[in-house]
Structures are given as C-alpha cells and as structure tokens.
C-alpha cells in the first residue's frame, strides 16, 4: 500500500477562551488514502470542523492552536507535516487551495458579496498559478460548467446574491477545485441546502472525485450522507475519535455505543421501530467528564469507563475507543 495522502496522528487542538482552555480536538488520528472519501461524523461540537480547520491551518489566530500531533500531507513533491508549518507562510498557503481545497457549510455566506463569482474564482486560480486574467477567467467559466452551472459565461459576471444556495455551493466547489487540489475537505456541504439539492451536490462531489482522482474528507453530522458518499468513516465525540470504520460497517456493525446511538436516532424509510435518541445531552465544551467522554450517556458504562479508553483495533478496517472492546486486543 502506498503512503496515504493525508495522515493525521495524535492531533490535539486547543482553543484559548476567556472561560478557560477548550480542548476542541484531543489525540485524533486518521488517514485518507488517495482517491477515497473519508466521512467524519459526529454531533455539532464534537471537533470535526476543528479537525478540518487544523488540517487547513485555518484556526482562529491567537485562539486556536495545534498543541500536539502531526498532519502529514503527501500531495506535493514530498510529504510535509502541516502542523509544523507557519499558518501564514508561503508553503502553507500553497497547500491551501493548491493541495487541499475546502468548501463550507453556509453557501450563502461563503462567497464575498462584493465581488463577482468570476472575480473570486479568478483570484483563487491566479493565486496558485501564473495565468493571465483572461486565461483565468476562461478557466473559471470552464470550471463553472464542470460543476453544472448553466450559461457559465454570463454567470461568471454575476454577484453571489444572484445565485441560489445550491448554485453557490457549486460555485464554491468550482473555486475549491480551481487549482486542482488532491484533497477536497467538504465541511457539512449540504447542511444548509434543500434535500433535493443535497443529493445533487453529493453526486457532483462524487463525480468530480472520480474524474480527478482526488480524495474527499466529508464532514457531516448526518449518517445518511455518509451512507451515500463515504468509503470509510471516522466517528467523533467530544473532540475524540471513538470509532474508525468503513461506511458499510457503520450501518451493519457499529462498534462503539455512541455510533450505535447515532444510528438508533436515525430515521430510516421503511423502519417501523421507534427512534431511540441517545439519552442525555452533549455536555458543554467546558464540562468534559473525566475518562471516556461518552460514559455519562452510555447505557453500557462500567466502572472502568472513568479511565480514558485506548483505541482498540478490532480488525484491519475498524478500530474503536471503548472498553467494551478491550478483549479485541492490541491498539
């Protein structure tokens, strides 16, 4: 097996807030292979967005900070540890947009309202290559066409407010892909759009992934989305990875009680049984319980759960951080 495109190891990101330090991401490890879609799933506040932003070095300056771990990206000539780069330095900027593209949750606000769509895409293109404005604009039209925007030549001169939410997200994708990144991070790309549009966007991402042979890190709180698009899945809870597995297994054989809970709260067509929401609520970010973060809500919690469980590897595809799987052996 070749080296993964992205390998995150022991990532720990802290936010310094007036109320104290928030450990947003704690000892997170995962990898993304070339050409695969990794789904990152979890409730809001679980640290999945912070993980993505850590990868992009887009943490709020002076507040968010990677305190430990490595993020090795192998998209350029040689592998580079993003965590060790200066967030504002040229190498990092070359990776942003160039090596890794990112799209966000809110298509309505992700585009700058005072520049035309074209101007914004051109800006991204010219940032990573030495195309003339004219060439860049032609490329932008082409990209818009690729993401399924009709009449791209005229659309390119319009301002974002003339675009619908779905179109904006497409434009965002066009922009994120403009410099030909190896990895696309999609942070809840469909949360703010209609269900009908959601499917189209996911479809589009999938299509582009296949065409370009790139990888996708798909962040979502919606297991259905995972089911549709992801190859493998990372489940996060309160800043930690609780389970890493394949998309299929999430549904078929969830290992962690939290994953099971998530699944249980998922309405599915044709299922007659009652929804079983996870009891309790996600504690506030400053109220991290000691030991297993899920223990207070876990129906199967044991005495040992007061201690943070290590990650147990069940097999080649699945590892889980739960004492229930202690017997599965080695980490």
């Amino acid at each position, binding site marked *: 097996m070749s080296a993964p495109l992205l390998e995150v190891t022991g990532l720990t990101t802290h936010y*310094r807030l007036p109320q*104290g330090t928030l450990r947003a991401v704690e000892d997170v490890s995962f990898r993304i292979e070339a050409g695969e879609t990794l789904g990152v799933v979890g409730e809001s506040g679980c640290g999945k967005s912070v993980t993505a932003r850590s990868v992009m070095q887009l943490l709020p300056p002076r507040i968010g900070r990677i305190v430990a771990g490595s993020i090795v990206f192998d998209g350029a000539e040689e592998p580079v540890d993003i965590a060790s780069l200066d967030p504002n330095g040229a190498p990092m900027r070359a990776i942003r947009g160039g090596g890794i593209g990112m799209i966000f949750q809110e298509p309505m606000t992700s585009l700058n309202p005072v520049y035309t769509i074209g101007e914004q895409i051109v800006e991204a293109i010219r940032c990573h290559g030495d195309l003339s404005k004219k060439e860049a604009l032609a490329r932008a039209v082409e990209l818009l066409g690729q993401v399924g925007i009709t009449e791209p030549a005229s659309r390119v001169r319009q301002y974002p407010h003339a675009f619908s939410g779905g179109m904006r997200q497409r434009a965002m994708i066009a922009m994120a892909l403009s410099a030909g990144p190896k990895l696309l991070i999609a942070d809840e790309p469909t949360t703010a759009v209609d269900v009908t549009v959601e499917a189209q966007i996911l479809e589009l991402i999938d299509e582009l992934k296949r065409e370009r042979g790139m990888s996708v890190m798909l962040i979502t709180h919606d297991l259905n989305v995972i089911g549709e698009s992801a190859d493998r899945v990372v489940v996060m809870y309160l800043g930690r990875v609780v389970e890493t597995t394949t998309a299929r297994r999430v549904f078929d054989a969830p290992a962690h009680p939290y994953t099971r809970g998530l699944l249980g709260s998922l309405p599915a067509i044709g299922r007659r049984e009652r929804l079983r929401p996870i009891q309790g609520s996600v504690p506030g970010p400053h109220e991290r319980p000691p030991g297993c973060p899920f223990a207070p809500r876990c129906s199967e919690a044991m005495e040992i759960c007061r201690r943070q469980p290590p990650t147990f590897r069940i097999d080649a595809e699945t590892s889980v951080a739960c004492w229930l799987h202690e017997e599965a052996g080695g980490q």
Partner: protein
Amino acid sequence: MSDRRTSVPGVPEPAPGSALPAVSGAARGSTLEPTVEASVSEADAYRLLTVRQLMWRKFLSNRLAVLSAFVLIALYSMTAFAGFVAPYDPQDGVSRLSYAPPTPLRFRTEEGDFTLRPFVYGLKSERSTKTFMLEFVEDTSVRHPVYFLEHGEPYRLLGIFPATLRLFGTRDPDARVSLMGNDQRGRDLFSRIVYGGQVSLSVGLVGVAIMVLLGSVIGTLSGYFGGWFDSLVQRAIETLRVFPEIPLWMALSAAIPPTWSPEWVYAGIVVLLALLGWTGLAREVRGLTLSLKRRDFVLAAEASGASTARIVRRHLIPTMTSHIIVTATLAVPVTIIGESALSFLGIGVRPPMMSWGLLLSDAFKVQVIALYPWMLFPALFILVTVLAFNFFGDGLRDMADPFS
C-alpha cells in the same frame, strides 16, 4: 486557584498576556484535569447568578465605568454643596488680585521645616511701570495655615440653609487660597468652577429628563399606534435630524430675548436642548416598541382588554427602561456640551450666572491663554465630566446586556 480570577464573567476580552491557563504541548493528558475542573465550577457559578447580580458584576468589572461613576458622584456632590466646597463667594472679586495665579499649597517652610498642615503665603500686588501689568510677590513673612472645616464667609447650603462652614480656607481673609488662580476681576476661579458646575451639570440632567419624557412618550406612541401619527413623527424627526445640531442650537439660542433674566435664559437653554435632543431617543423607543408590540405578553394584555395607556405604562415602558437609561445617560454629555458650547460662544447662559462654558469663554483670548493659562481649568472639568459620562454610559450599556 489562580485562574479563577480570570474567569470572572464580564471580561469578554481579557487583555493580552493576562493569566490564562497556559497550555504547553507537553502538558497533555491527566495533568490538565484541574484546569478543566476550575472552568467547570466557574461556569456553574456563572449560571447560578440572577440577572440582577449578573448585571451588577458586569458593571463592576468595567473599571473605567466604576471610576467614572465615582467621578460623577464627586462632581455632582461638589456642585450640590457648592457653598461648602467653594472657599469664596464666586462673584466676590478682589481687584488687587486681578489675574493672580494659583496659590501654591506649601508644606515646607522657608526654614526648610516640614509641616503637616498646608499653608499659603499672602500675595502682594504691584503694577509694573513697564508693562502696566499687576505683578505678584508672595509675602513670605507670614504663613497662613489652611484649615479644614473652617468657618468662613456665610452662604446658603443647597440654596436654603444659612451656613458658614467651609471645606477649607485660611483664617485671614486677605490671604486667599486660590487653588486654580483668579480671573480678571480677582474672583477665585475654583469657587467659580464649583458654582459654575451647578449650571453645567444640571443642564445635562434636567435637559435629559425632559428629553426622556418627550422621547419615550412620543416614541412609544409612534411605535404603538403607527399610521399617520407615526409618519408625522418620523417626518418631524427626520427633518430635525437633518439640521446639524450645533448651528441649530445656536440659531434657536440666539433667539432667546436678551431682556430675559438669567434664570429664564437658563430655562430656555435647557428646554431648547431638550426639544432638539429627543429625536434619537424617540427613534430607539419606537423601534423597541415595534418589536415588543408583537411579543406574547403584550398581545396577551391586549387580548385581555387592557387599555392602551395601561399597556404602554405597565408593559412597554418598564421593558424598555434599561435601554432608555443607557440612551439617556449617553445623552447627558451631549447636552452638557451643548450648553457649554453655546455659553462659550456667548449665546448661552448669561452673567451673573456661571457655567463652565461661560467661564471658559473668559479664557479664550490669546493673551489670556499665554499669560494666565490657569483660566483654562474649566475646560478640564468639561472634559472630565463628558468623559466620565461616556465611560459610565458604556459600562451601563454592557450591563444592560449582561449575556453578551
């Protein structure tokens, strides 16, 4: 625990470098547990506070606002007890002390001995034959100790009770303590400032009181009724606001008949400032009313057949009180500036009434500033008052919105 201090709510933007819990890359894992616990308990405390306590805490945490509140209390009590604080009658000039400089309070005698009780030297004045100006020489032969809570010239406390007790003074009426020097007529500038504050500071309060009355009533009615009344009010406000305020103040103030007595002129100025100043408040109140009007409790009151007046009085106005207080507080300095500017230009209050603006107009001549710079002291008082109100108002604003 040292971080407890930093977790006091109401400091949303701690100064850089303040003692936030330091987290180093190495110190991970269980070693950090105490920090987390501290945050947890603090957050609980935060949640248990009542809104009132929360507001109070928030205000107290704004140190400039607290300081300003003290400054304002000091200034207002100074003017309320003007007779007690001021050592001399503000109108009583000693012509030989024309433009005499501030009297230095001394603690060290000629012989070099230190005395705890400050003393002053008397001033001898003589007219220079060269410049024709009065020149002052301290008469160091006699020391005049400054006594506190000393009986001096009679005055009326709060304008009613005859009194003679003064905060400080010398026992020899010829040796005057002029902390801030003397004006052209040899009147003690400090005393004049203390009395002048009565006009300057009260204009703010009285004017704003009228403004609040006008603004909240008109604003509430306008927002509550809407329709033609609202359009009319909005149009009036728009027109008033398109006039630059100082020129409009000036134009109206200049129309106050010159034959009015100083007291009436004062009243005229106050009313004028209030009549032109209510618009901002009215707008704000109208906006609030519009948003409150559709809230449940008002709808409920309406449904239960409460009269309009009752709804406005019992439901709308109390709900808006905090906003009104903040806006009103911030309107006080504007009014004070208005009066000062008008008096400074000679179209505000008239002598023998005193206000800080009027006192300052005496100083606004090149030769006065060059030769008698202490005449600028009133400017300091205006500045401090306005600043204090602004900081205080800022604090109140934060306080009115304790959850931000």
